[in-house]
Structures are given as structure tokens and as C-alpha cells.
């Protein structure tokens, strides 16, 4: 008897409390920018693909759901020929983002990824590539690296001397 009354009292108390249930999807909860949701491939500040197809994200992925193939354009700039993430396997752990040396692969606060058909969870590069730099605005890997790419010759990277004249004998 006593326990019954105690239960009813608790119930009545709760009817007066502030509601915590959110009317999703009409009402969206706040997710912080560093939330680990749907993965995107960002572009560098010049609007080029940031991914240099180094395969590190694929190696870091504990469920092996990233697969890509490297290739390079006529100027020697390396980029992925294809880049595929199988989100039906992805556990959104963020290891790929952690491993990425170019800030290309980023997890976003978008978590709405339900599909009726698993096949729709296989994202190709076209589906992953966004038009901006994502969370990390300034960085451009090819401006730091020593390799030449279109529009950047040897010695034109950050902190580089002009190419050495190897026939120079001056001390």
C-alpha cells in the first residue's frame, strides 16, 4: 500500500517538472561542432580537393570501411581516383579524421543517416566532397609539402629556399 502511494507521488511530482523530451524531428537538439557524425571530404582554401590519397585514414579505420585509389593529375598533384566509405560499416569513431594529415576527412554533426536500403549507405567521392574547408579553414597541405603541383614550383612552398644550383661551387 505504502509503495503504491509512493509511486503515485513520484508520478505526480514529475508531471510538474520541465519536459526533457525533444520533439524530434520538428525540433533539433544542439550538437557541438566536434560531434562525430557523417564524414565529409573537405576542400582546401583554394577550392581544390584536400585529400592527397595517402591511405592513412583507410589504414586507421578499425572496421576497414574506407577504400580509395590514388592517382595524380598531369602536374603531379596526387588525389583519390575514387574514395568510398561504406557507412553501413562505419562506427563513427573518428580515427580517420585523427589520422588524416591534411584535414581532408572530417566528421560532421550530421547524424541523420538512416536508410531503408543498406546500399544507399555506400558513399562515393561525389557524395563525400563538400565545397569548403570544413572545420579547418586555413590549411593547404600542398603549400607546405615539398612536391610540385600545378601553380606551385620547387622552392615556392612555405619556408623554402629557391631550388639549389647544384653546379654552384660557392661555399
Amino acid at each position, binding site marked *: 500500500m505504502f509503495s503504491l502511494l509512493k509511486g503515485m507521488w513520484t508520478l505526480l511530482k514529475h508531471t510538474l517538472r520541465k519536459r526533457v523530451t525533444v520533439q524530434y524531428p520538428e525540433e533539433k537538439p544542439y550538437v557541438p561542432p566536434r560531434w562525430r557524425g557523417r564524414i565529409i571530404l573537405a576542400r582546401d582554401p583554394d577550392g581544390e580537393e584536400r585529400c*592527397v*590519397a*595517402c*591511405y*592513412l585514414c*583507410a*589504414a586507421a*579505420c578499425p*572496421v*576497414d*570501411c*574506407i*577504400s*580509395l*585509389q*590514388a*592517382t*595524380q593529375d598531369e602536374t603531379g598533384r*596526387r588525389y583519390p581516383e575514387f574514395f*568510398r*566509405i*561504406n557507412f*553501413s*560499416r562505419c562506427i563513427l569513431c573518428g580515427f580517420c579524421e585523427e589520422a588524416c*594529415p*591534411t584535414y581532408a576527412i572530417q566528421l560532421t554533426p550530421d547524424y541523420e543517416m538512416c536508410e531503408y536500403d*543498406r*546500399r544507399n*549507405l*555506400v558513399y*562515393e567521392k561525389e557524395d563525400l566532397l563538400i565545397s569548403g574547408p570544413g572545420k579547418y579553414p586555413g590549411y593547404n*597541405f600542398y603549400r*607546405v*609539402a*615539398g*612536391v610540385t603541383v600545378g601553380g606551385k614550383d*620547387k*622552392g615556392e*612552398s612555405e*619556408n*623554402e*629556399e*629557391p*631550388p*639549389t*644550383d*647544384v*653546379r*654552384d*661551387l660557392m*661555399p
Partner: protein
Amino acid sequence: MIVATIHIDNKPYEVQEGDNLLSACLSLGFDIPYFCWHPALHSVGSCRLCAVKNFRNEEDTRGHIVMSCMTAVCDGMRISVKDPEVLEFRASVIEWLMLHHPHDCPVCDEGGECHLQDMTVMTGHNYRRTRMRKRTFRNQELGPFIYHEMNRCIQCYRCVRFYRKYAGGRDLDVSGIHNHLYYGRFEDGTLESEFSGNLVEICPTGVFTDKTLRKHFTRKWDLQTAPSVCVHCGAGCNTIPGERYGKLRRILNRYNHEVNGYFLCDRGRFGYEFVNSDRRIRRAHLRPGTSDRSAELEPSSKEAVVASLEGILANGKRPIGIGSPRASLEANFALRSLVGPDRFYTGMPESESALVSLVLETLTCGPAVSVSLREVELCDAVLVLGEDVPNTSPRLALSLRQSVRRRSLKIADKHCIPLWNDRAVRKVSQEAKSPLFLATVAATRLDDISAATFNGTPDEIARLGYAVAHELDPAAPPVEGSTSEEHVLAACIAGALKAAERPLVVSGTGCGSEAVIIAAAQVAAALHRVGKTAGLSLCVPECNTLGVGLIGGGHLEAAFKEVTSGAADTVVILENDLFRRADAKLVAEFFKAATHVIAIDHLFNQTASHADLLLPAATFAEADGTFINAEGRAQRSYRVFPATDEIRESWRWLYELMQAAGKTDLPLWTTPDDVCRSIAESIDALKPLGQVAPPADFRVAGLKIPRQPHRYSGRTAMTAQVSVHEPAPARDADSALAFSMEGFHGHPPNALLDRYWAPGWNSVQALNKFQSEVGGPLRGGDPGIRVLEPAPDREATYPESVPEAFSPRAGERLIVPLYHVFGSEELSAVSPGIAERSPGPYLGLSPDDAESIGVDEGRNVRLTVADVVLVLPVRLIPSLPQGVTGLSVGLGDLPYVQVPAWGVVTRAKAGD
């Protein structure tokens, strides 16, 4: 070996006295970082990374830092490899080396297998403190094989030491001073050496990387690999091919102490791309209405083809089988079992068959013993008879280059200089060379290190061999009518061979002359008579020439006759383009006479286009197989990835044909082991075949050996675009290897060792961890077994006749074969990189001969041999003897011409 006890961090260890400290410590399993030292190039002490601390005695607590690679081990030595001062020293060396290092790892093809990365992690350097600007260099265009990115260099000198000193290349060097050292060519251009590919593995950084890999770049951890054997010549080098997404991506060296050691030639390393070629036969093909062959071959289902074969094989008159020296023992034997031993033909033309039988006879009858490539390096006097080694058996040429260093090493030894002290050895010996005598048709790329060269016709070369044998042992038949120069040369060669501790005779099928091989055997026999144990190394053209020779069978012309005479009407051709081995007219007649032609091969070629039934055969990358190299070593090669489409192993096709033909009492063949067992049962010489590699049911602790590294990526995404359900991994019931990343990741038996990796060692240098001592045999013994051993104590016998001296014929010239490392071999020539390096077909003439014909370099001439007429551009070859003309065999679409032969060379007429 004298054992010395040294104390490393106060613990005693037994090592070899006099060895260098670095190699001793690495052999003991200590991780000491290093760059410039290499087990094959030894020590120069230029990078300063391998520092350790040396203490005078037990009381000495301060000690002093020494470079371990430059310090000899002596008994009672006390060192520390982890003294704090030493660790700091190494970290600062790396920091200096990294001052100018570009921020390249993500786009560097070395990344993930970079010795510099490994060493940087090992020493703990992880932050660039300097704000100095980085020095940069421009790269060079180095041809189709090597990609250059000079910014990444750490100035260890390994590349030039290998390229120039070890491989004898001349067009790569270091230029500049202080921190402007530049490793490259004088100007942009293709690297000339046929060993340039080794730079990829020798360079500890990403300066020199594999350009063919770059076109379809994949990291080491993503490559599916298997132990394999090179199929591009008779040397039988061990390789590690790597595959990703169903395409072969690259070849790395697989260490075999007895065979190729650390190095491959570029044909073997870059010839793999034929596997990915558009010319691959991927489906079974059938010619509708087989009687007149006017219809085109059409892709058909496997079942339909096998069904139609059933009819052909059951009703056809005596089918014959044509095997191939480039197909595995298993495939050849399966064909032999299908058609019966008396109807099996080796697929070699009569002339080559005779040469191969002679080679086999020489190697099994003794007294000379065939030597491995490593033993070649230990020989201190060499006579090459007739073989253009750099072009026919490139890796052997690299071993010969090391053999001439024996004298240098002896001199250094006399001065008590340890042999690993490379710079000192070279200085004190002034690079003195042991004698290498080259008797060849024309100049070779070994001429620069030879004591004397002789260019002549094959018969003249044979006569020189006989003369040497006579000089060594007067019981050998004398050579009549030789010039005094020849006499002096023969005496000089005989003297050098006699004075040597380990003389070696090299010859082979290259110049197409039996007399030359007999002469080589004579020299070896004569050496034996005078109490020397002579080594013999006989080059053969293809990866399984000796294998198919041991299986035995008739030659190609006999097979043709069998069909044209009507005794047989059905032929099964195994991995063999007959147009490369016999006169086109003969082959055409043969095809016309045959009612049913069944071909099994990798690539669409002329023979395939004549077949009524075409079956797609797996290449070395998709099939297990056993091959016998020129030394007589049987080696197992494993498939790297499962075959796609309808491609299958040739022996499996042939087994299916046996079943289709309704053969009774078939042995049960489910794995290559079963085929090998049948081979061992029916061919005496191949009895030991069962021991070549562990059986298919071999397991380590119940586990298979994985072909994929433990960090193989993309398993759940690589086929997701096709089906989101991952397929089950392909099963491999044929071997102890698995198409998987699961299994035993330790050190398996060496025949199954498919990659080198150890914790902290991601680069090829991880190999250290698999050797019994660094630079020595693999722990547990090197793979492969020798099947050709001569009977002990065979007495040398001499033949009676000596070939006649060369007498030019009026109006005719002797046409001899000339080979090219890039282009002369059928399969590698299909690979784009090799094709780019291959010259077009040409006719080689000495300048005098060219003048007498009235032609110049590049002008066309008309060559008539037997009834073949060819129009070819002239190449002037000053070393060719007068009256002798060289034909570039195997190049491009040049039809088969049997050489050596007499032919007529005239100026090409207009319209030719």
C-alpha cells in the same frame, strides 16, 4: 669463424670476431639505427647514425662514442647501445638530417615502408625546432622505371655506391658540395643500368621510387603478396609481387641468399605489367564452324568449350601436346599426362632442344658442378664463353661484377683490413680486379671489368675454349691452325684459371652453338684434371627451360611433322607462341594440317589467333607453379591473388581436358602438391620435388600464412559499390597461404615468407630480422632445392673433334643472335616500361662491313636467311667481327629466324 665474447650493456654475447659491430648487434636482434651501411655494400661511416658507446674496461664508466658500423668486434669488448648520451647523439643526427626534409610523407611513395620514418621513430625525434628555410632541389626525369624526388635525400651515398660500385653503372653520381649534394644524372635522361630498379630498395628514403607503382599507387600495407619466382629469364630470382583490387602493382626483391640476394634486374622488377595487359585472354574462346578457320574466335562459356573438347579429344586421332619452357613443371607435366609421354613435345625448336639436352647432360655428368649466383660471387677467375650475360641472364652479370672484386678483397685481407670496411678496401686495393675473360660474339656490358675480351664467331669462341682446355691439360685435343694471338690469349686464360682458388666457366645457349657449351665443359673438365674444382654456370633462356628439358619430349619440328604427315590431327599448345620459335611458314602449314588446335595461354598472340579453342591461362601471379632455374634449383612460386573471369591454372584446364577425354585411371589431382607427387613418381630427376615447399595442409599452430598484412585496409568497402555484403574471402586449398589478413604473422618457413615486416621495421630492411645473421642465409635455410647434382668423381673425357677455324664465305655472312635485356623476352616486352626501353628490330653490322655493303647507321638492309627475307635498319656495332652480322632476336614483331645461320645482306631496294 672465431668467436668473440662482447658485453652489450653488461650482458655477454658471442659474436664473430672481426665482424663490424653494427652487423653483429643487428644479428643479435638489437635495434641500432643506421642509414649508410647495407649488408651488401658494407660500411663507409657517412651518416653517423649508428653510434654506440665503447668502454675501455669494466671500470670505465664514461666510455666514448664510436660508429658501430666502422668498429670491428674484438673479444672482451664492452659497449652500450642504449646509453643516454648515445641516444641523444642519434636523435640529434636525425634532427640535422631532417632540417631540410620536406613535409612529404602523405604524398611520398616510400611512406609506410620508409627506413627514414622508421629510424626517426626509433630515435625519438618528433618535432622540427628550427625555423630555417628548407633547401630544395629540382628533380630529374629518369626514364620509365624510376621516379626522382631529390628534396627527400639524406646524403647517405647508398645510391651511388650501389649504382656505380656494385652495379657498374656510370650515369648516376653525386654532384655539388656541402649541403648541396645532388644525387642524380649529369642531365635528365633514362638511367642506363639494367639494375636501376634496385635504387628503390637501396635508397632509405623516397628519393628513388618505383615509377610503375606510382601509376597505380598502393601502400605496402595494402598489398596482397606471395613468395614468387621471376619468369623473365633462367636465373630464377625470387620475388615478392604485390596486388591490390585485382591488379598486380609492383615487384619487390625476395631475399634468397643462394640466388638473387638483395637484388633483381629491371626486367624482373618492371616486367610484371603484362599481367594487367588488355591483351590478356580472360574468357574461353571458340571458333564457330571449326573446319576452315575463316570465322573469328568468339568468347564462349567454359562449359561449351569443355563440351566441344570432349568430342574432339574422344574422337580425334592421336592428339599431341606442345609444352613450353615458360610454363611451370605442373602445367607441362599435366599436358604430358593428357597426351602421353610419346606424344608430348617440349615446345623448343630442334636447335634449342639439342642445346638444352647438352646443358642437362653437362650438369649431370660432371665433373664440374653448377654454381649458384652467390657462389659465382666467390669465384676468383672467370671465363665467359659465348654468352652475352647482361642481356640473357642479367642477375648473373651482377654476380660476375662482384666476382672480380675477389682480388681486392684478398689484398685488403693481406693488409689486415676488414672486408666490410668498404672505402679502405677499395683504397688499399686500388680496385684491383680478379681476371674475367669474355669471349663473346660482340662487346658486352661487362667489358669494362674484363681482363681480356675476344670477339669471334661461335666456332671461334669454342676453339678458344678448346685451346684453353689444351693449355690446362695437354691430354685435351689441341686446336690446329690458331693464330699466335689466340694462342697467347688461351695460355693467359689457362694460367689465370689455374692460379685461381675457385675458377668458374660461364657459358650457355645464348650464341646457339653446341660447340661452345662443349668447349665450356672441356675447360671445366681440364681444370678438374689438374686438380681444381671448377664451377660451371650455364645460362638458359627461360624460367623453366631446364624443367621442361628434364620432363623431356620431342622438339617442335618433330611435332610439326607428326601433324603434317597426318599421324595426328589434334594439338594442344600450352603457353607457347609457336611463331616465336619456328619459321612462320612451317607454323602456318602446321596449323593448316591440324584439324583441331587447342591453345592455352595468357595473352592474345599469333598462335592464339590460329586456335580453334582458346583457354585463358593464369600467369605466375595467379597460379602456383614450380620452376627449375639454370643452376638446377627447383623453386616454388605461389599465386598472389585469385584469378578472375574464367582464368585458371593451365594444369587445371589440362586436368579437366583429361576428364573430358574420358581418361580412366586418372590420378586424383586437387592441389599442385598432387601434381608434383605424380611428377616425382614418373620422372627420376625430379624425385625431390615434394620437398621444394611445405605441403598445402601445412599450418603453424593451426594457422595459415596470410597473404595480406595485418593492417590491410578497405575490406568492407572495396567491393561495396557492387554489393554491400562483403564476399567471403577467396579460399586457397592449394597452399598453406591464405587470401586473408588472418593467420600466422610470425616467421613461417622461408618458402612461404611473403613479406618482411617486424615491429618498428616497416621498410625492406626488416629483412634483417629474418636472417640467421645479417646478410647471411635466411633463418631456417633458403628456399628451393637443387635437383641437378653430378655423380661424384666422374672422370673427365674429351671429345675428338674441334670445330674448324672460321672461313668467310663469298657473298654470304654468318648471322648470329643478339639479345636485349629489354625486349628479347616475350612476356616482359608487353609491359609498357620495358617496351619503352626496348629498341626496335635491327641488323648489327661492323662499320667495315656496312661500308662494303654501302649502308650507314639507320639505313635499311635486306637480309635473306634460308627462305626468310627481312628488311631491317642497320646498327653499327664496331666489336662485331668482319663477315659476322647480328640479328636482334625476339624484338618487336621480328619473325623467327633460326640463327646462327648463313645469310645474305644487301642494300634494301626502293619499295622494300
